[in-house]
């Protein structure tokens, strides 16, 4: 029997006596007997921490793909970046970890200022002036952006490039069941969105990826023009690491930027908790989803921070709120601010550049192999898609024997045929290289892939 309860038996007895009760059961006596659970919970007995640790050791041993045991070339929005000791130490400070939402600003300036700094960084990386305090992840940030577009235009048609990550599009389709949005997915040709193949009229939003999920750098000029022509919001889902060196969403004319912020200090974590990045133009500020921190002063004129524009939020506006978001991903936002502080202006440029250098070096090596071709002839940044002579999932399994996580099978992401890949989707492998990958690891990848294709 182990727990974290402070009461002694004497405490419990004395407290019950104070309440005029004989037993703890008396506290629940007003619950109708018909619904009471009389048999207790059918769970195992409580265990000590070391005993539970032993159970979890079994789970961790069965996770063969852990990046500590296998070299990670998988990306798709989840990247194996360096997270230094200093960032872990600061982000794990219990004042940040065990705080609640900053509803009492007088005792929450730490979290509020860290969010303000995070918002500043999101604004700079997106090139847009109005960030929010974070959303769950990139996929749900896109859904919030679509809801914003509906609010801004009164229209329901969402024209989304299939260069947007398949999971993001799947999530958008799920939530469209409730909002009634019509999701129109635009196919890719040679890895580039074929905007002319769909009817954009009456659209609320035009959504493009930058780089798109296959890694391709698309020229977003035509997408922006379409949005302007049809008076739709232009939403750009961008890789925030690439934003260290590439044109920002704002520079491409985006009304809304959404992104996945895991790359800034959050471990791969089997998919969560991650960080939904969001920023928009001044024109959309009243439709902003979730929280936003603003600067103000206290009663003695000192600078202070506080959650603001609260009248948009669910606890005040209820069924007319801009979003239902309450809990967000504050700790990941604080972590991102710390990680970016550690990287600094030139560190961010350096990791973005190194990702591109490693990815291009690997790509060139792979192009010499038999049974490997590029899905797109277009320029890419830090990620690229290959069409192999064997099913991608089979290749991943074979390369795992050489301690390489080879990438992501695109048909596993899409769950079947997808407008992003013209043919042979089961043989398409998405590969990424981060700044952590050495030349030796990249060279080993090349040999392992060659061997896997020959086996």
């Amino acid at each position, binding site marked *: 029997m182990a727990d974290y309860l402070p009461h002694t038996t004497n405490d419990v007895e004395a407290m*019950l006596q104070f309440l005029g009760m004989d037993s703890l059961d008396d506290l629940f006596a007003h619950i109708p007997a018909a619904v009471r659970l009389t048999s207790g919970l059918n769970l195992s007995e409580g265990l000590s921490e070391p005993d539970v640790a032993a159970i979890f050791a079994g789970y961790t041993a069965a996770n063969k793909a852990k990046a500590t045991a296998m070299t990670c070339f998988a990306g798709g929005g989840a990247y194996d970046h360096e997270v230094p000791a200093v960032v872990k130490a600061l982000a794990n400070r219990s004042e940040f970890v065990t705080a609640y939402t900053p509803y009492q600003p007088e005792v929450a300036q730490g*979290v509020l200022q860290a969010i303000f700094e995070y918002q500043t960084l999101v604004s700079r990386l997106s090139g847009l002036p109005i960030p929010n305090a974070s959303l769950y992840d990139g996929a749900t940030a896109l859904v919030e952006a679509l809801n914003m577009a509906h609010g801004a235009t009164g229209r329901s048609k969402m024209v989304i490039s299939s260069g947007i990550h398949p999971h993001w599009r799947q999530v958008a389709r799920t939530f469209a069941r409730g909002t009634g949005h019509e999701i129109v997915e635009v196919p890719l040709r040679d890895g580039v969105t074929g905007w002319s193949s769909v009817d954009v009229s009456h659209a609320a939003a035009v959504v493009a990826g930058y780089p798109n999920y296959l890694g391709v750098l698309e020229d977003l000029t035509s997408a922006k023009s379409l949005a302007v022509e049809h008076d739709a919001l232009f939403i750009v889902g961008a890789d925030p690491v690439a934003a260290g060196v590439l044109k920002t969403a704002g520079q491409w004319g985006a009304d809304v930027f959404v992104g996945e912020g895991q790359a800034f200090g959050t471990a791969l974590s089997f998919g969560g*908790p991650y960080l939904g990045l969001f920023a928009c133009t001044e024109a959309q500020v009243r439709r902003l989803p979730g929280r936003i921190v603003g600067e103000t002063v206290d009663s003695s004129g000192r600078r202070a921070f506080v959650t603001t524009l609260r009248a948009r939020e669910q606890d005040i506006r209820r*069924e007319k709120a801009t979003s239902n978001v309450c*809990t967000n991903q504050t700790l990941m936002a604080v972590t991102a601010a710390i990680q970016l502080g*550690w990287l600094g202006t030139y560190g961010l440029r350096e990791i973005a550049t190194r990702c591109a250098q490693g990815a291009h070096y690997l790509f060139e090596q792979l192009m010499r192999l038999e049974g490997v071709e590029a899905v797109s002839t277009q320029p890419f940044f830090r990620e690229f898609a290959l069409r192999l002579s064997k099913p991608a999932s089979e290749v991943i399994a074979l390369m795992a024997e050489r301690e390489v996580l080879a990438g992501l099978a695109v048909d596993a992401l899409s769950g079947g045929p997808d407008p992003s890949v013209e043919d042979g989707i089961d043989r398409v492998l998405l590969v990424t290289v981060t700044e952590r990958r050495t030349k030796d690891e990249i060279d080993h990848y090349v040999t392992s892939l060659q061997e896997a294709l020959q086996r």
Partner: protein
Amino acid sequence: MTVNPQPGGRASSAPIMGHETEPTLFEMSVPSRSAYQLRTTGVLATALGDLVPVAHLNHEVVAVAEVSERDLVAHFTRLSHRQFSVDLGMYPLGSCTMKYNPKFCDAVAGDPGLNAVHPGAPASLSQGWLEIMVTLEEKLCVITGMSAATLQPAAGAAGELTGLLLMRAYHQANGEVRRRVLIPDSAHGTNPASVTLGGYEVTTVPSNGRGLVDLDALKAALGSDVAGIMLTNPNTVGLFEEEISEIAAAVHDVGGLLYYDGANLNAILGAVRPGDMGFDIVHMNLHKTFATPHGGGGPGAGPVAVASRLVEFLPGPRATRASDGSFEWVTPARSIGRVHGWNGNSLVLARALAYIDVHGGDGLTRVAQHAVLNANWLRRRLHEILPAAYDRVCMHECTLSASGLKAKYGVRALDVAKALLDEGFHSPTVYFPLIVDEALMFEPTETESVQTLEALAQALERIAQRAHDDPEPLHHAPQSTPVSRVDEARAARRLIATADAER
């Protein structure tokens, strides 16, 4: 009962070096200073312009900040000293369940065997993670009395919307179009906001004089166009909906479903299960009931468990036990689809499983018992200065009212909440639920000792005495905190959301 108010959970001894403003990271920046260090890779450092077409490059440098590691550490450490937390002291925020977060659960989540696994790794290479998910799902179903669950929703509100989409899919599969969802007037704001996003209209059901759902009003609001009802039980006032079986029967009679908002599940662990009360869909806030830390406003996790007739609609893919004992991803036949970019807030899920395993069935039952004991002790202890809005046995939280202090001395719930900060305690939730005048909602949680509760009670007595003696200074509390009351109107009037905003 005489209790020595030793300050176990009282934070008034926390050291503070001063009340100056902490500069921002950007104000600390000095050109060419840096902290980052990267691995030596041996990859040729080709110029970016040779890899990427020039049209894509940003010719402006995106400024982050330029600080040394030492400055970075000092800055965020000082910010952390300007922040209240559970680890620092008692945080009796009603409805938010700020209980102690066991460090062991953080250690579990910090193991690279869990946190260094790519979410897209095939099931064969991430069997440990799938087993964690299957095991947690099974245990959550035992705790709630449901059949199966999705672990994808990232927070309570995400769980609510997922539940409403499940409700919609269920009715659609039966060829029914239903328009309305009922919600009590005491509900959390996320409920009506989620209803709108779920494509339904809200019908508000009033509470009766006992703080519970008015059964007659509920019946009057029911009809064949009602998709379901969203209920929190115990409700947001901290009271158990004693007519839950009658409510369930009435809603089921018109073909509606019952949605359980699990914000207060921590009150009933081992005592009563949502499934046994007739609920069809249940979300759980793992960051509340199962003590995963709140992170200053997230991450949370909001798994949704359902009755057997809704299992086929659950989001996918779901980790599932295969016939050979291994684990695989399976998407249910009529799944509503994915509700998260990957597999949900996995590290939060792992923490919750560790918490459940340490406690076991008996321990979880004690958690609820002691939470309810503490709330009732505090309610009774305070009834002379802050009477309960509904004066009878409550569950895990008690809703008190400062309406007496306001009438007599002009001291409002907000003033009491702010004055409590000067006493070394975090404020309770104020002005919620909306149906209680000058509400102060205290949720002491099971992890606070009776000595801490006594210290809190004595602090509130001192505040009541000050209200009687000289109320004016209470309107200016707190004074001992890093900043005093902030000008919220100014923040809203002229938005300054970044360091770059025009001032």
